[in-house]
């Protein structure tokens, strides 16, 4: 049985190391950090994507520290009160394992997330690539956008960051950890794109949306 080897995997470390590795010289996906994330004077990567601003890492670390602290406290309470929670002897060990996994995840995930997060906004679509263990590439046609919101959480506000929430009829996609002016600019730009696209169609479509088949009927009435 033969399997096709993806081009980006040539000459890179074994899969387990790829999954875990997040050093400075190589990307966890196996992509070279410098070439993939190097930005030009316009802040764009080679394939036209934008990366997050460094302040986003601080925001992510702060939120992860809070999550890790809460989980560690819960695990500690569970380990210390096995007689109350249950008589299973493995409870302290299980609590310790959960606490360690969460702490490691919270320590590592912001860096990986920051390095992998990319977004691109074209005239016709919005693309977002992100993920820590599972890497997701979301593609949202601008035509499908119903609503664009700018959301600022308390931690993001501390670092001057905001999220852009893009709502479609099939769900919501967000561009996270943007600088506030950039988020506002993107929201305005997307709104204008949607309106512009519809205006363009007005040139050749029926003019009255409430009487869609009455391009003739409206005219008759007007006459």
């Amino acid at each position, binding site marked *: 049985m033969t399997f096709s080897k993806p081009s980006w995997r040539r000459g890179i470390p074994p899969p387990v190391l790829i999954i875990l590795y997040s050093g400075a010289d190589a990307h966890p996906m196996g992509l070279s950090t410098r070439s993939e994330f190097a930005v030009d004077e316009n802040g764009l990567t080679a394939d036209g994507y934008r990366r997050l601003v460094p302040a986003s890492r601080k925001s992510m670390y702060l939120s992860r520290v809070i999550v890790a602290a809460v989980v560690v406290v819960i695990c500690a309470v569970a380990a210390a009160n096995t007689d109350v929670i249950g008589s299973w002897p493995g409870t302290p060990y299980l609590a310790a394992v959960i606490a360690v996994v969460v702490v490691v995840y919270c320590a590592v995930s912001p860096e990986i997330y920051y390095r992998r997060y990319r977004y691109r906004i074209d005239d016709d679509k919005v693309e977002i690539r992100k993920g820590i263990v599972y890497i*997701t*590439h*979301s593609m949202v046609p601008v035509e499908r956008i119903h609503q664009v919101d700018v959301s600022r959480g308390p931690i993001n506000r501390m670092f001057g960051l905001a999220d852009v929430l893009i709502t479609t009829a099939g769900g919501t996609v967000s561009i996270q950890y943007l600088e506030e002016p950039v988020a506002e600019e993107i929201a305005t730009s997307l709104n204008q794109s949607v309106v512009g696209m*519809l205006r363009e169609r007005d040139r050749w479509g029926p*003019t009255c949306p*409430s009487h*869609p*088949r009455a391009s003739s009927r409206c005219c008759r009435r007007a006459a």
Partner: protein
Amino acid sequence: MPEPPSGIEPVLQTGGVTMRNHPTVLVGQTVTYAIVLFVILLMSSSVGTRSLLVLCVLIALLFLYNLFVWRRTTYTFTDSELHVCRNLMVTKSDNYIHYTRLASVTVRRDIFNVIFGTSTLLFNVNTSVNAVQAEARLVLERSDADELRDRLNAWAFSAEVTREEEAAIETMIAVSNRDIVLNAILGQTTAQQAYGLLMLVYAVASLFYDSSGGFLLAVLLLVFGYVFPLAANIIRYYNYRVFRVGDRVTVESGFLTHTRRSFAIGKVNSVRVRTPLLARLLGRAVLEAEVVGIGDEDTRPLLCPLKKRAEVEDLLGRLMPELHFRAPEDSGGQPRSALPVMAISCLVAAVLVAALFWALMSYVAPLMEGELSPFGRSLVVTFLVALPAIIVALLIVRVFLAQRHRAVCMGPESVLVVHGTYDLSYEYVNYDKVQYTEVTEGPLDRVFGVAHCDLHMMSAVGFRSLSTGLFEPEQLRRISDEVNARIADGRYDYRRYLRSIYQESGDLPKPFYSLSFRTAWARDSTWGSTPAPRASRSRCTTATWHAWRSPTA
């Protein structure tokens, strides 16, 4: 909020007819309340003259309230929209339902309708918000309801077919009531069938070996979890009929409650040939459509009950040729590189299942000593030993079934996604209904160069995401590229979409104010008159703006 484009013109009212619900709804509501209150009273410990008096007063008060609501609720049909006005003095609501937003108009006849000779019209809007409850419901005398529905069909679905003509139209596939019974039994998911079988075995075992009331519990679980849904399915789809007139598909069925629902082809998100395991082994399949805004119980219209696979495919080709296409043989299947990904995932899942049951066994074993009866102990042992073995076996078979069947094949107007394992579905998804896509690569996927794609759409119950199997990422990204290409080159455009629903025709349907209802109570002072244009609609409101630019919402 963006301003609407300058091309939009004001919506003007040109005439309409205003009506209320048939007065017999008051009787139906009062009887229902009375039964509920009486049952509550019976369940309480004190049943006496005083409590009966309180009950009567309560029923009278509820009747008066319903009378007040009935009197203050009006339905006005103009030539462009339905206006539901509910003026209760303290609160007032005006719901404007533009006909372009109507996904379906359903006629239902329940037991009260049959007694009083009325029909209930359900107006379902093309949105997921009213998936369970219709946007508006109106009870009219049967002939009036039929006339109104015919008029609405003419306006909203370009189908100038009367109820009498419709009754003469032959169903597109002959469905006997035997097929409906088979559909109820074999059309269920394998999980439901396994549940029914398990409860049956449990009930029989309890009957012979257990004297602690386990039999009664097993029978209750069997009846409520399996028999009732099966019976409801038979009752719902009894006397089944499906046909298409123009761009409108109508499905009729029902034993006690006769339901007739119509929807435009343009509102169909996807159509799927569903083959549960047992049905597939018998070479049979079920045809269903995903239509947003059907509302009221049946969120997934059944287009064809359990029939031979070839007949179902043939019906699909005739009923919805817009979405159906013949996928080339042996094309679009999962690449071989997907197999190790699934095998390793299966191995991990098997280890986790074994660990979970080992932990359960080590925890439960000390408790069983002297605590359980011999029958209970044998049940627990069987559960903790046999169940993980069955789960692991199912996981292994699942890998091979997925590799053999899952596929993605792009057609001219739709993409065929074969998903599921034991219960397979061949789903034709309309490109123009895909809201956005997500291609996801897990750690193992990245090693073997595969990914899966989630197609996000609206559904009758909110959002829905359809996941494909494992394919090369570039192949999956082509779906999104096609969706974008259709928008960019004009193959998809909302204006065109509207025109496809509201086909241009030389003769316009009769306006609503010419309706000739016989019942005088249905009329009020605005009957046949021309209401003044609403000042608030001198330009497009936000609601209209959203409704116009978002047909799928």
